[in-house]
Each structure stands twice: as C-alpha cells, then as structure tokens.
C-alpha cells in the first residue's frame, strides 16, 4: 500500500492520542512503519488498522517496560446496558473544556475518542480494532460521557457564579 501524507498525518495524530507527546508519537510511527515493511499484512486494505495496532502494541510495551502503563480494572457489564458511542454525539464542548478533560483521560480513553471522532468508528468497530469485549468499550464510553458532562456542568456553574 502507498501511504500518502494524509495517511502519515493520521497515524501521527493517533500517536499523539496515545502518548500526548509529539516526539514519542513520531517515534511510534517510525517504528511501526519499519515493522510494517518487514512483514506487511496479506490484505493490503487492512494496512491502516495493522499500523495502528503496531503503534498501540509498541506504546504498551514501552510503558509496561517503564511500569507506567496504567492498569485498569475490569468493567462492570451491567452498567453498559443501553449504551452506545452515540452517547457522545450530543456532547458540546469548548476547546478549553476539551483541553482540560483531555489531560485527565487515560490512554485507552483517548484512543477510543480518537477512533470514534477521527476514524468515525462505532462501538463494535472499536471493539474489533482494539480486540476487546464490546462491553468494555461501552463501559468506557459511558464513563467518558459522564466525565465530559460533569466537566461541562462545572464550567457552566463557574460561568453562573
């Protein structure tokens, strides 16, 4: 597959979503491309997801190595009933609110937001991409929505005061 500038920029933004660091995002992308070139997938059309997968695994390896990758508990499946990525659709934020919340998000939450907002994936698509149970994705989306709403409410209260 031939990668255009737009592809590379998209991967880079994915790296930013994971690491929140431009230099590290670039390193992740470079490493991922090298791995991809050594063993590209049989199905060319799967290359985009394949490279994101290499970047994610590389990032997790690095952080496990430094014992900094946050371990997250198992999700409660009961709280995911009736939840979908559409819950995020009706949220409105200012750039400042997003900046504040973004700093508080875990790596996996930023990754889910990226796949939903930039790659336009549904909860099922995200679960497939991340190879995790759909319930876990939905649970994270539910908590994410609550956090975004809490932040927006707090901002509105400040304005009211």
């Amino acid at each position: 597959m031939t990668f255009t500038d737009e592809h590379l920029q998209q991967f880079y933004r994915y790296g930013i979503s994971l690491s929140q660091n431009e230099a590290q995002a670039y390193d992740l992308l470079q490493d991922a491309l090298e791995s991809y070139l050594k063993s590209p997938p049989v199905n060319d059309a799967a290359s985009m997801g394949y490279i994101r997968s290499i970047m994610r695994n590389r990032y997790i390896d690095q952080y496990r190595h430094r014992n900094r990758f946050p371990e997250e508990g198992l999700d409660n499946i009961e709280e995911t009933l009736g939840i979908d990525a559409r819950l995020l659709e009706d949220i409105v934020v200012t750039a400042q609110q997003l900046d504040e919340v973004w700093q508080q998000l875990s790596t996996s939450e930023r990754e889910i937001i990226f796949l939903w907002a930039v790659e336009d994936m549904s909860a099922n698509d995200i679960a497939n991409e991340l190879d995790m149970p759909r319930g876990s994705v939905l649970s994270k989306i539910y908590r994410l929505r609550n956090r975004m709403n809490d932040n927006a409410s707090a901002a509105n209260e400040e304005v009211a005061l």
Partner: protein
Amino acid sequence: MKSTSSQSSLKQAVNRKLDEHQLSGEQLNDLHKLLNDSQTNTETAGKQRPWYLAAGAAMVAMIAILVVVFVPQQSLNMPQLIANEVVRNHLKLKPLEVSTNSLEEIRSHFDKLKFSPISSLNITDASSLIGGRYCSLQGYKAAQLRIVSSGSGKLDTVYQAPYVLDTFGKLPDIANDDSPLVVYERGIKVTIWVEKGILFARTHMEATQ
C-alpha cells in the same frame, strides 16, 4: 494552544484539537524515504539470495496465489470494501454536522478536506441535499452527504473522497463516459464512480412498495 469560548460538538472539537498536530515537511520526507528505501533494499537483496531462499520465496508466492484464489472475494475487493463502509455508515444515520441544501454552505463547512465537494453529473434526479458530516473512507478524510432521493423519497448517502488510484484501484471515470460501478451490500445498491478527481459512492434506497 489557542482556546475559543464557542462550543462545538465533541467530535468536531477533537478533530480540531488533533489537527493542530502536524508532521513537519522534513519528518514527512524522512518517513517517505524510509518507505521507499526499504522497498529498494528489498528488491536489491532479492537478487543476492541463495537458491533455498528463492525456493522458499516461490513456495510463499504459490501459497499467496492459493490464498487469493480461495479467500472470499469480499475481503480483497476494494469496491466491495467501499460499499461495505458506505452502507455501514448509511444505516447508522448519524447526526448531521451541517444541515443545508446549499452546496456553498457544504463547501465552507468541509474546509478540512483536500478537495472541495462538488455536485455530480450522475446525480441528476433532482435529489435534494439536506446536509453532511465529516467521515473517512478507507482512511481518507471524506464528506458524507445526505440527500432525499426524488425517485424513492428515501434518504440516501453520498460519499465524496479524494480518488487515490493506488488505494482504490481503477474505477469508472465519468470523464471517460464510464457507467458507475454497481455493488450490492446488505441488499442495498451502491454506485461508485470517479468525477473530477473525486471518488463518489452513493446508496440507492428503494421506494417502499
């Protein structure tokens, strides 16, 4: 980082935030060089391989051919992959980011694309535009427009994405008087064509009997 007090949807705000991060021209050049050099090295190294590696490569090639022959066509067929992505998102009917019947307003909304959305000579049934939202098609940032078909009265989805030959392969081009490619996905007809360098993919929902 600049902040604005104006509110927007979370999706738009995230896209804007991440769009602030761009690879520099130098970094892009380095990555393209990495990709191209590796390809050249692979070709050069191939000439120096001993016979057993060549035999191994031949065996791998044979297996690859068998895979191509026996793997279901859908997984390797780009038009089908396009139709799959378009229909999947068409059925979701996600909220529009901009609601308008004006192509000018559509163009000004989709200012992050590498191209400007156009009207198509292939959509001649006076279908009315009702709006659109950002999306992607096979990894390329694209416009997902929604129209009401005058024929069926149903909502249809029209994708417009940059046409990249290497990725999408050869597709019918209206400039050559080609007819659109017709693909069916989940029972929904999808037509695919290229017009003025833009890849179009449109769903055709049938009128209720």
